[in-house]
């Protein structure tokens, strides 16, 4: 074991341009806020790159999964999460829905001059906690500071590496006739949570974001039902968008039932009032799974056995026609098309 180094401390209370200059202030900031918080040997080395033993990777499978995502959510802290939790969970989820075991993450921040350093510290702690929950390591990073007004408070990019076990092939074009379609819980929570934070809408109840890492849930699902055909997390554009991606890739019809959709009353209420559709609202802890029809109930039971899948539901089936289309059977047995969203419901939600 290496003996603990003396950690250098930041004395400033706000980010200045000096913290991005490459000099002493920047080193103090990185060591104090990030290295000390993330606390792992790979990062402690402070080399320009993380060095990851290939043996450790190949032990998990035969394909490397690699993804990146930038996080620009406004506000930085919201009911149920914050930009740090989002930045770790979002990238972990992008790996997990490919069937990969997420292992390593990078963390690059762009901070606006004047940002409160205590706030940055809270974000770093949240990243650490979420990484611990997901069982991933934050092994490399970067810090940039831009003048006031050139960015809004704080942007974070994380890239992630995971390994896909041999034989696993989850893909959007694998949906087949007769497959069952599932979600792991109530939809639209994140979008509504952010909306409530932004606009002072004066609702008595507050919806919390579902922001969470889903790799544990995906592992549970795959253990019970290895033949999962499609899996995707329903972030921007919501569940309707993922369904459309599957329908287009597989050239089939995904039919879902309005009565089967798990939606919180609070979310429905807000959406009713503002003319939004929960099916298009963003989620940060929800996935859509397509599994062979006979496996539907088993997959459902597996999802429900996990804390992040308690309210999972089978929401529909894969049909032949009309091709490349998502059809919703309404409460009354009428049908309507669920198309891709044109424009956006809300900007900067993740």
């Amino acid at each position, binding site marked *: 074991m290496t003996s603990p180094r003396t950690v250098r401390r930041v004395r400033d209370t706000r980010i200045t341009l000096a913290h991005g200059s490459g000099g002493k202030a920047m080193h103090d900031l990185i060591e104090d806020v990030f290295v000390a918080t993330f606390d792992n040997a790979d990062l402690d080395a402070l080399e320009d790159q993380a060095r990851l033993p290939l043996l450790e990777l190949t032990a998990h499978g035969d394909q490397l999964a690699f993804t990146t995502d930038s996080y620009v959510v406004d506000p930085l802290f919201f009911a149920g999460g914050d930009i740090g939790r989002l930045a770790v969970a979002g990238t972990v989820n992008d790996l997990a829905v490919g069937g990969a075991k997420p292992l390593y993450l990078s963390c690059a921040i762009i901070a606006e001059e004047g940002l409160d350093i205590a706030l940055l510290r809270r974000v770093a702690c949240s990243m650490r906690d979420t990484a611990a929950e997901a069982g991933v390591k934050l092994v490399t990073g970067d810090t940039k500071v831009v003048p006031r007004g050139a960015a809004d408070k704080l942007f974070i990019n994380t890239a992630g590496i995971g390994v896909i076990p041999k034989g696993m092939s989850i893909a959007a074009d694998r949906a087949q006739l007769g497959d069952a379609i599932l979600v792991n819980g109530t939809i639209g929570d994140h979008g509504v949570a952010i909306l409530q934070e932004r*606009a002072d809408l004066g609702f008595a109840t507050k919806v919390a974001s579902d922001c969470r890492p889903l790799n544990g849930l995906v592992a549970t699902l795959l253990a019970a039902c290895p033949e999962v055909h499609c899996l995707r997390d329903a972030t921007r554009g919501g569940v309707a968008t993922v369904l459309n991606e599957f329908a287009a890739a597989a050239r089939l019809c995904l039919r879902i039932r309005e009565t089967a959709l798990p939606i919180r009353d609070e979310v429905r209420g807000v959406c009713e009032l503002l003319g939004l559709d929960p099916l298009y609202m963003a989620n940060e802890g929800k996935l859509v799974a397509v599994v062979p029809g006979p496996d539907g109930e088993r997959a459902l039971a597996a999802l429900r056995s996990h804390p992040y899948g308690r309210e999972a539901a089978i929401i529909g089936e894969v049909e032949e026609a009309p091709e490349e*289309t998502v059809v919703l059977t309404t409460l*009354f*047995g*009428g049908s*309507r*098309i669920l*198309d891709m969203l*044109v424009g956006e419901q809300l900007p900067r939600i993740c």
Partner: protein
Amino acid sequence: MKYVDEFRDPKKADRLLREIRGLVEQIPVCRARPLQIMEVCGGHTHAIFKWGLEGLLPDRVELVHGPGCPVCVLPMGRVDDCVALAEHPNVILATFGDAIRVPGSRKSLLQAKADGADVRIVYSPLDALKIARDQPDKEVVFFALGFETTMPSTAFTVLQAEREGIRNFSLLCNHITIIATIKAILDSPELTLDGFLGPGHVSVVIGTAPYGFIAEHYKKPIVVAGFEPLDILQSIVMVLRQLAEGRCAVENQYRRVVPEPGNGPGLAAIARVFELREFFEWRGLGSIDHSGVRVRDAYARFDAESRFSLPGLKIADPKACQCGEVLKGVIKPWQCKVFGGACTPETPLGALMVSSEGACAAYHNYGGAHLAERRRAASPEVAA
């Protein structure tokens, strides 16, 4: 969810649909051609598609989607005026969100914003007034639009600005009136409508009396309808019952919200601030007499049309568009030559493709399956 689920009960919907099927048998004209009922309001169009109601109705009842989407019917020249205002260096242009994508001849407000114009989305004209209060060195212009539904809030905002002595607030007034519009449709020579679902929100303000002429003079039934699926189905039942009994009257299905005399203080505020224009230009329908309002001279300092010089050009609708025929129920949206081809929600050519409440956008977004079925039914050789 309370106060919502009660109006979405599938069992009650079933009963109403049975009643509709029964009534259709009793209406003689149904044997010769389908009955045409127009829902005037875009909110109804949206709900009809959202709940898939059209597909549940018997074939002999056709819903015609009317002109009641104020965003859709905004002529291009007015959008150009608004964009010109937004591009003025000292102007903050405040608008409702659904107007931001409406294409002008040069660009939409969304594109103007991307090009550097200060365009803000507000939920109420009072939000625009707040911006004016907070930024006294800027000119804040509110893009006022809508039928009588939104007129009182605009009028009250002007009165509030006057009380506070705010000098940097004005509106580009595009408010339109429902009665002149319905009358223009009724006077159209191609008209084949049998009855109307009256607009619920407009009626909250104007009440039900102004529709009297539809029953008396034009001999058509009209039922003011709510926006939940059971509201709409029940209103259709009420129209059909009138037709079956050979009556035509103004009836109010949306009584829980719409008072027969309307909203007195709201109407008084409208009368104080606005006066009828001689005519107003509509996208798709052309010029309609007395179908718009302007700010009265007494409040001219709150009128962007007198405060700023505007291009004020009249831009013709694209030639290929058949919005007018769709609006009058002469053709269905998907029978238009450019529907789904040159004209889509991403690149709207015509008025009705612009807002989610427009009939063509609703068909495009929600109606595809139903439409495909109908087309297949109409031309079996294609299916084979």
